[in-house]
């Protein structure tokens, strides 16, 4: 007869529930983001910069000298207009006529300054790049570490993409900005201020006039900047949507062909592509309008300076040369202002990216690892669960007042329907989350006091789908314990009776398993997970029983390996098959978050409660071979 007895036909539904809970979280986050876009003032560049600098103190290192260099470099750029003025006034239009000596000297000095500025700019740039790259490298590593410290609820499939982009594309936007935009900001703002200062040496009236004309650019740019940010935010999500559609077309290639879904997929792709295009085109509108704003204002400035300069110049102590110099200075301001407009969108994306990374770093880590944590005792571990409640932040309670004492070395099966809380219970034992109330003791030590290294080694959870890294089989197994040697790996393999399987693989232990281990079958991936556990020699083994079908040959290897692995350890299995429960020392029956029954299989059948009911319904349904 068939011995595949499945209690919970669809397996790990609590995980589904969990994912649902956090996708709700996500919706809230999205709404929040949209709100941010709608209420522009909430996007505060300065606040992000302040936070960013506080978060990355290395940015301050050598900043002053770099700024000084940048300032000198920018001031050096003012050389040319001044030179023109000097040459015209004192070289050409001087009372004594053309003065070749003076002209030559002035030009020589100017050339020296231009070349000096060139070298200074080089130093400044290399300093800036070094500082910013160092800072970004550290920020990236910290963000990455933080992601790994987030509670599991953050790690559903939707969030995963977002988390990845925090460490990749968001930091890349900052990097791009650091390479181009940051230098431009410093140099341009120094030039703008410096130009106004030099101008006021010739005539403060004209400097003031230029400033007055230029002032309205700022609020206008700010307004456009916000609209642009919003537009680019939309572009980014549209790009994501298109890629999601493309990815459906690629990953669903089989069903799409089998069901003749090409027209439907094509229509959906077309919609996504058009939506992306429209969002990009409307962002391009802002992009097109912002830059020439500087030119328009420049024209107003130039015209007004020219007119007032000619009209009142003499009474303000100007002469022809200094007025022409002022006109050049006005022109000199235009370039930087325009460039500031140019890099504004880059700045905005960078700041938005930076804000997202900083927000990630601000996401609280629910689990605090103890300082000077205690080590778990050797040998099999007992479990003591006292009045434990658990609730996800966004949802209702998943576990209600669960208390149970489980002796060391016992094999325990947890059974229950979808959503009964059994998977959550298993996760709590592994401290993938902390109970919202109550306490769990493993080997007599409160789980929250246990040292992290000791915990990960002595309590080992074997998830349903053994995720493998894209490297060799040997390296994947060795991950089971820090510092495991090849000999250890081989021993673990032979202890579990997996030698034959490994030898049967094309390149044995050196077989490359591919992305996510997809070069191996589901069952083989589970074998790797078991070998990893064997290496760690845990005292408590938590098994999430697989629901997916495994071919019989692998299934047998798996069963043997599991039996050997479980020997001499406390094992808790989240059981999807009744046969597992039948063989366990203790069965825990969960229902709607409550621990309903605890006892051996025969006791529970005799007690004629919920378990007995499940058992009977299964017996009645099973066909005979």
């Amino acid at each position, binding site marked *: 007869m*068939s*011995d595949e007895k499945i209690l919970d*036909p*669809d397996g790990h539904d609590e995980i*589904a529930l969990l994912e649902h809970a956090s996708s709700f979280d*996500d919706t809230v986050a999205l709404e929040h983001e949209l709100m941010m876009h709608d209420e522009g003032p909430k996007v505060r560049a300065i606040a992000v910069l302040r936070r960013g600098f506080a978060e990355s103190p290395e940015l301050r290192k050598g900043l002053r000298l770099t700024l000084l260099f940048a300032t000198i470099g920018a001031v050096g750029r003012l050389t040319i207009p001044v030179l*023109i003025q000097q040459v*015209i006034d004192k070289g*050409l239009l001087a009372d004594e006529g053309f003065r070749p000596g003076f002209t030559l000297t002035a030009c020589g000095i100017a050339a020296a300054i231009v070349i000096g*500025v060139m070298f200074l*700019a*080089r130093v400044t*740039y*290399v300093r800036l790049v*070094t500082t910013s*790259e160092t800072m*970004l490298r550290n920020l990236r590593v910290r963000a*990455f*570490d933080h992601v790994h410290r987030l509670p599991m609820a953050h*790690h559903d499939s*939707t969030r995963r993409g977002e988390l990845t982009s925090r*460490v990749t594309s968001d930091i890349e936007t900052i*990097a791009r900005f650091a*390479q181009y935009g940051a230098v431009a900001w410093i140099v341009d703002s120094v030039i703008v201020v410096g130009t106004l200062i030099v101008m006021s040496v010739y005539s403060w009236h004209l400097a003031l006039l230029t400033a007055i004309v230029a002032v309205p650019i700022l609020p206008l740019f700010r307004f456009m900047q916000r609209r642009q940010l919003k537009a680019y935010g939309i572009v980014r999500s549209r790009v994501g949507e298109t890629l999601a559609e*493309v990815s459906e077309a*690629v990953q*669903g290639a*089989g069903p799409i*062909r*089998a069901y003749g879904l090409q027209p439907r997929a*094509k229509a959906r792709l077309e919609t996504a*592509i058009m939506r992306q*295009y429209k969002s990009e*085109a409307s962002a*391009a509108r802002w992009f097109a309008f912002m830059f*020439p704003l500087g*030119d328009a204002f420049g*024209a107003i400035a130039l015209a007004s300076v*020219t*007119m007032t*300069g000619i*009209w009142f110049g003499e009474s303000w102590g100007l002469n*022809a040369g200094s007025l022409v110099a002022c006109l*050049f200075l006005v*022109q000199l301001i235009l*370039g930087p202002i325009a460039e500031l407009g140019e890099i504004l969108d880059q700045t905005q994306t960078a700041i938005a990216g930076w804000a997202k990374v900083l927000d990630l770093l601000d996401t609280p880590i629910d689990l605090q690892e103890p300082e000077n944590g205690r080590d778990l005792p050797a040998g099999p571990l007992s479990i003591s669960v006292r009045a434990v409640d658990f609730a996800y932040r966004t949802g209702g309670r998943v576990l209600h007042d669960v208390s149970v004492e489980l002796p060391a070395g016992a094999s325990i099966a947890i059974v229950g329907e*979808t959503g009964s809380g059994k998977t959550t219970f298993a996760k709590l034992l592994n401290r993938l989350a902390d109970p919202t109330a109550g306490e769990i003791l493993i080997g007599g030590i409160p789980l929250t006091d246990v040292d992290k290294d000791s915990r*990960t080694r002595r309590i080992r*959870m074997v998830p349903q789908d053994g*995720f493998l890294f894209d490297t060799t089989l040997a390296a994947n197994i060795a*991950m089971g314990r820090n510092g495991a040697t090849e000999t250890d790996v081989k021993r673990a393999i032979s202890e579990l009776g997996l030698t034959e399987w490994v030898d049967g693989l094309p390149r044995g232990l050196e077989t490359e398993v591919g*992305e996510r281990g997809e070069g191996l079958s589901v069952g083989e991936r589970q074998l790797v997970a078991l070998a990893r556990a064997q290496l760690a020699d845990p005292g408590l083994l938590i098994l999430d029983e697989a*629901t997916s*079908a495994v*071919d*019989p040959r692998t299934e047998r290897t798996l*069963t043997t390996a599991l039996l050997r692995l479980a020997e001499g350890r406390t094992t808790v299995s989240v059981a999807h*098959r009744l*046969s597992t429960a039948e063989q366990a020392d203790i069965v825990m029956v969960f229902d709607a978050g409550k621990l309903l029954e605890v006892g051996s299989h025969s006791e529970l059948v005799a007690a004629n409660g919920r378990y007995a009911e499940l058992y009977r319904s299964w017996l009645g349904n099973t*066909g005979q071979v």
Partner: protein
Amino acid sequence: MELVETPSAKSVIRRAATLLRRYVRKQRLVFFISIIGAAIYAAAAVGTTIILGNITNNVIIPAFEDNEKEARAIWYSGLALLLVGFLRASTIILRRYFAALLTLRTQRQWRRDLAATYLEVPLKYHRETPTGQLLAHADADIVASSEVLNPLPFSIGVAALVIFAVISLATVDWFLTLVALVLFPSLAIINRLYTARAEIPLATVQERVGGVSRIAHESFDGVLVVKTLGREQQESERLETAADSLRSARISLGKIRGVFEPMIDALPNLGIIALLLIGSWQVSIGRLNTGDVVQAAALFGLLAFPMRVFGFFLQEVPRAVVVSARLDKVIDAEREPKGGDAVITDGALAVDFENVRFGYGDDPPVLENLNLHIPAGSIVALVGVVGSGKSTLCELIPRLVDPDAGTVRLGGIDLRDLDPEELRREVALVFQETFLFADTVLENVTLGDEITEEEVANAARIAHAENFVARLPEGWKTEIGERGVTLSGGQRQRLALTRALLRKPRVLILDDATSAVDPVIESAILRDLRTSLAMTTLVVAHRVSTIELADEVVFLDGGQIVARGSHKELLQSNSDYARLVHAYAHGGE
């Protein structure tokens, strides 16, 4: 990411010209407007300097030297400057917006072409090409192949600007023209040198960016394993190594930029100094006047920035050429074969395999000399170990793959004589891995077809999906995936079956399609299938209870049919079969 190879300069120019012509031809009007914008801009920019020179000579100098202030001249000066400035601004808008449109539309076209390709190539193509690569084509590659269009109109404008500038200089003085003729080519040469020197470091940076993101992807994907193995520290070190090498690559690139960028900035200024020297000498001997020198200096300053955009354009060109060639190759991939117009008869259909052989590449064939007749209306169970060719046999029927030799017939008709669309309306293949779209449950089973509620309810009843769907938050309207609920394997499989049944197939193929469903439910489903529709059913089965329900069992081993008959007959006649089935029955222990 592979390094972008550098083809010879000559072939790049030729290929770039071809590519740009091809892009532009599809967007003539848009391109034309952006070019007009760029050209008027160039004229207006030169115009500004001419106006400035004139104002200096005719208004400013008389005003200060001779105290001649003519109100009208002053007003005209201001107005002229204002108008030419506004003209410049508005042409920038034209040029920028339409250049962006040109780029975006080209990218849109690429996206459409790629999407169509991905949908039309045979399944084999997808099996042989990693998803990541196909996504990269649709994302970064499209941008790389067409980003060159953004600076294109401006670059053409710059070319015009240089010509205007040189002409307007030539009208002033040929000596000054000479300075320009030395300066601009040397700017171009330095730009070119810069591009050449930066190319390899740039590719290294890109490759390392890819390395960092691969690690992040993998590490976050396997987060549960990282957590349970306590490998956060090792993962962090792995990323640190990658981040460090990215940092050092960026810094070396930065050093190259640090050499060239300031040089490119300094050159026009040195040009202006040379111009002033020569200019003032010329003024002194009376060949020029001050205004001419001012105008020439303003022109030089004006040209510095555009020359850089031109450099950027040149830098983008080789990349666009290489990447667009790569995309072209993808788009040219062979499409699914078309069929004939044979007509299928009504009712359940027989399936025949005649001397079929199928293999992947040079590997030993998966199926070899396979002959099988599946009678119309029967339920046949396909049994065999992993790798025996079961799935391939299933995929041959809806023609997802074509046999290398031999013939597959449906209702007696060679599949190659049938329109694939027609064929797939009659044949439904349900895979073990259920693919669900990020859409509602209902949409996932109807797939956009108009189907009555009653029909959906009927199909769902047979597939035993009715009850769990009813319990979902919004029933049939519940969203699945990204922003909705996640279903378990068994639920997904039952939806896939509903989806298949709704299409009223005349041949239903279940390729291990109920493996995650409770065996009790699985048996019930098969019993209901038998009574529900007039169709032929082929089931790849692992469970004895399922195998038993079939009219006939086909035992496949090593790509060939080794035995067939009822379950009981095979148990007795074939020891391999008996052993395998025994393993199935006790595998769960």
